[in-house]
């Protein structure tokens, strides 16, 4: 957990930078194996993100969902990714590698930037302002038009983030859902839980959420045989157990 706090104190430009730094910190190469290894750290970080900045959160969650794909594949070797999902994984690796190159290049540039400047001439041969050289383009109508154009094109900073937050369920939401379901039924099968979702990604998120809960000691998961359904039970002592 300390690693998470270490990264949290820094302002992160974005999910790719965060992910890259997590990989570099462990001195790993960028590949599916290393991405699977840092997935939990990344999800922990996303879990701590404030919901205020929706745009930022969306950027993180979209990367998180790709990581979850990768992690699931490493946990479930039988899982077949759809072509689109494969591309998603490949894209992520590619983007990380590109970003790594540019971060290196940025360091090279930082080393020399501003050290030995090539200067322009301080004064040009042309001295300003002995003459007045207008054109008929200068009219009050035109001047107002240019001002209006400028005002229209000023970047809007205060715009409320649109309701375009990824439809992917966040990990936290999913965990809460699992906990609630377990509380209600005390024992629930993974199939029942995941059957509510059509998208494979959501099934996987559900699965990972269960793994998280097991890790945190909130639920017990039992699988009698491979490929059998997984039974989930609440272990929270605050919930009365009428168990068998």
């Amino acid at each position, binding site marked *: 957990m300390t690693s998470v706090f270490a990264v949290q104190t820094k302002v992160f430009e974005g999910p790719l930078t965060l992910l890259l730094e997590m990989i570099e910190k462990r001195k790993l190469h960028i590949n599916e194996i290393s991405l699977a290894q840092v997935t939990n750290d990344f999800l922990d970080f996303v879990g701590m993100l404030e919901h205020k900045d929706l745009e930022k959160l969306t950027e993180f969650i979209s990367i998180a969902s790709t990581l979850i794909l990768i992690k699931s594949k490493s946990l479930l070797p039988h899982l077949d990714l759809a072509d689109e999902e494969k591309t998603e994984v490949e894209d992520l690796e590619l983007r990380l590698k590109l970003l790594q190159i540019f971060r290196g290049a940025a360091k090279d540039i930082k080393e020399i930037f501003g050290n030995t400047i090539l200067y322009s001439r301080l004064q040009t*041969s042309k001295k300003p302002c002995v003459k007045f*050289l207008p054109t008929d383009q200068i009219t009050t109508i035109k001047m107002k038009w240019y001002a209006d154009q400028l005002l229209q094109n000023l970047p809007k900073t205060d715009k409320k983030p649109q309701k375009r937050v990824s439809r992917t369920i966040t990990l936290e939401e999913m965990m809460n859902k699992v906990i609630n379901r377990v509380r209600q039924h005390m024992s629930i099968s993974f199939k029942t839980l995941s059957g509510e979702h059509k998208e494979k990604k959501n099934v996987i998120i559900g699965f990972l959420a269960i793994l998280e809960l097991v890790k945190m000691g909130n639920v017990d998961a039992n699988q009698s045989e491979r490929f059998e359904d997984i039974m989930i039970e609440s272990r929270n002592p605050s919930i009365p157990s009428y168990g068998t």
Partner: protein
Amino acid sequence: MEHNMELKHKIESILFFKGQPVSFIELSKLLEVSIEDVKKSLQELSDDHQKKGTRITYNDHECEYVTASETSDILSKLIKQEDESELSNAALETLSIVLYMGPITRSMIDFVRGVNSQFTVRNLLVRGLIEKDPTSKNSSYIASLDTIKFLGLNRVTDIPNYVEVKHSISQFIKDNSNESEK
């Protein structure tokens, strides 16, 4: 690095950069060499430039980097073209900003336009369309009197929507001045 450079090339660089006559005394102080050395280097430099597009001229106490007289035809053509050329969109936009927002600094013009306006501002100055505001301490620009007259206005505040435009742009500057720190 600097030490590898010959004295004459250091002088060349300074003269080029300053773009106006520089005295031998100033060069000798700046480069920490004798006036004799300055003169000797200037002689060499002047010879080097014999067949170039630029020359080094000097008298007995100062020197200057200038264009070669052989190029005066092409430069007059350039000046004539520049003087008669239409204004670019960038120039018209900048002029409009100076009209509505003046006195305004270069960096504020850059900030509002979202691009560097160094050359656009210089061009407007050269054409006499804007000028440095004599009353502001940090160098700010205002529309020239000629421009205001040319627009048919008595004063700049008579331009259409003066108050509204000024207010909206000021608001933008206020709202975003933190972003610019990034």
